[in-house]
């Protein structure tokens, strides 16, 4: 019994220590955002890698999700003669929930893994130590530009994803479900509120921050050669995905409390 309690206690203490370390790391990154030096070239490079290069995957995901959502809402709505709500529910579902969550998860898969692998490789090949000996703070040079770029890029990706998701719903609506193209668009515009879009963009910024934070954290903590980098990459993707879904629930509670 005592052994079970001791093991549980050690596990809990370890988990709390990890949470504390990540929170301290996040606070340090935020603190560095406002203190020079600023590595603008590195920031621009990351903005391109995280934002621009994620556009195809986020766009494709949004189109297919919008289309599938339209089909589901139509099928579900038909049970109580509410097929007409398809345009508005697709728009609200995409902008509030699916747009930011799908973009966040896609970026987590693409970017958290790549950040963790890149920084992890730098760690195990002593490139991080080399940065320090060259009077460059790895936190400032590696973490800050990535976290800032992801925090700014993901809302932009969410905005594009929202537009393409609604487009996917519209395409399915007019080709498969018999909606008039103008009426569909008018219904979408009439029911969509600014806050629906804005709340999704805020979620996108939070998800972007979490994705890059997890990539940097696990990359900087990696040890033990190629296997360690592999572990860091996997942990970065898993933790970013879980944090995105948890943060999504908390933000939804905050924004749209019943």
């Amino acid at each position: 019994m005592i052994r079970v309690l001791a093991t549980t206690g050690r596990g809990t203490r370890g988990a709390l220590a990890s949470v504390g370390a990540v929170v301290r790391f996040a606070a340090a990154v935020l603190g560095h955002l406002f203190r020079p030096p600023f590595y603008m070239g590195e920031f621009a490079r990351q903005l391109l890698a995280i934002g621009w290069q994620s556009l195809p995957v986020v766009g494709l995901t949004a189109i297919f999700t919008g289309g599938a959502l339209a089909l589901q809402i139509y099928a579900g709505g038909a049970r109580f003669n509410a097929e007409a709500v398809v345009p508005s529910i697709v728009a609200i579902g995409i902008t509030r929930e699916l747009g930011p969550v799908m973009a966040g998860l896609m970026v987590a898969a693409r970017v958290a893994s790549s950040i963790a692998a890149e920084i992890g490789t730098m760690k195990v090949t002593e490139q991080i130590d080399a940065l320090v000996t060259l009077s460059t703070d790895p936190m400032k040079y590696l973490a800050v530009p990535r976290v800032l770029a992801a925090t700014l890029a993901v809302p932009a990706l969410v905005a594009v994803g929202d537009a393409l998701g609604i487009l996917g719903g519209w395409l399915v609506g007019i080709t498969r479900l018999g909606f008039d193209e103008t009426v569909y668009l008018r219904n979408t515009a009439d029911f969509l509120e600014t806050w629906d879009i804005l709340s999704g963009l805020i979620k996108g910024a939070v998800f972007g921050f979490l994705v890059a934070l997890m990539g940097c954290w696990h990359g900087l903590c990696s040890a033990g050669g190629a296997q360690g980098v592999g572990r860091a990459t996997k942990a970065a993707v898993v933790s970013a995905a879980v944090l995105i879904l948890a943060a999504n629930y908390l933000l939804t509670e905050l924004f749209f409390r019943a």
Partner: protein
Amino acid sequence: MIELSGVHKAFGAKQVLRGIDLSVATGESLVVIGGSGSGKSVLLKCILGLVAPDAGRILLDGEDAGRAERDAFLARFGMLFQGGALFDSLTVWQNVSFRLLRGPGKLSRVAARDRAMEKLARVGLGSEVADLYPAQLSGGMQKRVGLARAIAAEPEIIFFDEPTTGLDPIMAGVINTLIRGIVTEMGATAVTITHDMTSVRAIADRVAMLHEGVIRWVGPAAGMDEADDPCLQQFIHGRAEGPIASVR
């Protein structure tokens, strides 16, 4: 002058350094030898502050290294890492001029590139490699680029971590000659860690042997062969039999 006294460092239960007492005079080339896993790299990292020692003092020209202003302290050092540690995402010239493009003494890109070219030439590399990425270079060329980066800002102290590991004997000889030549012409203080005895004989003014976490023997390179320390003799002659366990 670098002075270490009573430096201890452990990683978990493994005690790596058990009280290092060592000094390196200004302008001297000291080579630290010792078996794999004996703590040579940890020793260098403790001096640079990359690893915090658990106990002991490290002084640089009488000033406590732990309390020195970090950027000014690091600006006095250059380091060649074992694997080169070149930044994969930057070209060769950007690697060499990394420090020159940042910080208080920042140069323009044109001036930094010129300096990088000059240092690359010093290590025997032509301008044709300047715009290549590290992955496009051979191991020997990567070491040379690492060496050029270590000397780019003309530091007072240069650390060389296993400079010839992984190189063929001819390339190792080239690197040894370069290190000796550069250290002499710059008048820099050099600390090299290696277990390559050819390097030791080519580079060292003085040799220190690290064994079981302490400096086991220290003396002039010329006196190494006549020393009566059995550990040192076993190490420099590469004998399997002796006080140093062959399986560690």
